[in-house]
């Protein structure tokens, strides 16, 4: 079982520690989202509960709404109808308390500061995530170790390969030990070693009581073992495993 080298934000806030296995963590209830124009809703009354220690996969064709669902869960988008909650917290909770619980990986290769070095990039993210100063350097070092980025620590991001950048983006998603991990096509550009590291971190996160939501178009892209699988089609989730 892995643990973080700094006190979890929950503990710092005097809130309950991570949920016991099987307890509901992220609850999406009757989510509805429609993009502008005369199109049907991309999400139509979608409900999903992610439980502590579980890994969930959602598949579906391109453009079916997987990314929209993840963005709603991450609080990037606000639901037009329905609700998103982690316990009593909603994405609009004060002090970024909801966001402290979230680790988000967007699809593609965006979100990095191209001219920062790897260590600077992770340190910057740790500051945005309100990781306490005392444990920040150790946490950044541990994060680089987890994704085998130490040898690139002083290399600028724009001088790295796509797969190496994906490891940095994954390290940012996992760095602050969030209880809810939302991963949009996390295997993008990863080689076999990267995939192995990703799976190991997902297993460790689940073992410490986090829940993981992995979205990708194809089943073979998903994590080797997961607790539930769904397909998103015509705005609705269908359970497939």
């Amino acid at each position, binding site marked *: 079982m892995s643990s973080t080298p700094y006190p979890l934000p929950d503990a710092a806030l005097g809130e309950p520690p991570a949920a016991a296995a099987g307890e509901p963590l992220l609850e999406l209830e009757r989510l509805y989202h429609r993009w502008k124009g005369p199109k049907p809703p991309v999400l139509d009354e979608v409900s999903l509960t992610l439980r502590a220690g579980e890994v969930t996969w959602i598949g579906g064709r391109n453009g079916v709404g997987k990314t929209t669902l993840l963005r709603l869960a991450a609080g*990037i988008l*606000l639901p037009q109808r329905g609700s998103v909650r982690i316990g009593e917290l909603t994405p609009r909770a004060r002090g970024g308390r909801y966001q402290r619980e979230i680790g988000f990986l967007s699809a593609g290769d965006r*979100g*990095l500061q191209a*001219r920062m070095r790897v260590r600077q990039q992770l340190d*910057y993210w740790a500051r*945005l995530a309100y990781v306490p100063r005392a444990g920040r350097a150790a946490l950044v070092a541990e994060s680089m170790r987890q994704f085998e980025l130490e040898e690139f620590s002083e290399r600028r991001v724009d001088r790295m390969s796509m797969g190496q950048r994906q490891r940095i983006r994954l390290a940012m998603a996992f760095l602050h030990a969030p209880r809810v991990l939302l991963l949009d096509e996390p295997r993008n550009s990863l080689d076999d070693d990267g995939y192995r590291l990703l799976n190991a971190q997902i297993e460790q996160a689940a073992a410490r009581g986090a829940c993981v939501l992995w979205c990708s178009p194809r089943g073979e892209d998903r994590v080797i073992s997961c607790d539930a699988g769904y397909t998103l089609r015509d705005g609705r989730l269908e359970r497939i495993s």
Partner: protein
Amino acid sequence: MLGIMRRDAILFVSYRTQVVAQFLGPLFTITVFYYVSRLLTARTFHSPGGYFGFVIVGLVIIQILTLSLGLMPGSVRQELISGTIERFLVSAHGPVNGILGTMLFPLCNALVAGVVTLVLANVIFGLPLAATSLLAIPVALLGVIAFMPFALFLVALVMAFKQIASASQFIVSGIAIVGGLYFPVTLLPGWIRWMSDVQPFTPATDLLRHLLVGAQLVHPAGVELLKLVGFSLVLLPAGLTLLAAAIRYGQRTGTIAEY
């Protein structure tokens, strides 16, 4: 926010020629205006430095406006495109704090550039600086707080409508005219002069000219200072509210993820 300022400082110095250009650029501008000022003998400029002293303070303020009002919307738009605004949205720091953080380095950088401009004008071209020059620092900071809402308005428009780069340049040019940055507002025709009184740039400019180069004030310093504080108190909350509303609009409609 200091983390974002640190990030921007790292990115700024990573472009070394940009750092050099920032200090060389004002030198050329000062040189041009120094020789233009030698052609002018008008009595309008009641300061020891004449038109040169008058315009140098205007140039310093233009620098601050260009780096905050002029460039901020563009850099926020760049952050939207590169996906780094998304990182603010999923971080505990939050998008409003994140955007305020992105303003810190450009504003500090602009203040440093302003000081460099004044020092160059003093050392190379002999501009006499007033003994009250140090008092200009708190006034400049207050001026920056009063300018910030305008940058917030523009950034809010970027968040909602994405592309307003030309509008920000238009506004900076407009302020240069009605704020009296290059010439006294008394030269403006009556139908437009009222605009000089309804924004914080004119009192900030007048106060800074008074403190830096000893220019005479039309109104007492206390009145100008009160105007500046008043504009800040009214406009800053309005700017923050508008920015938060624009972000919420983008999150609700989904356009925050577009660029």
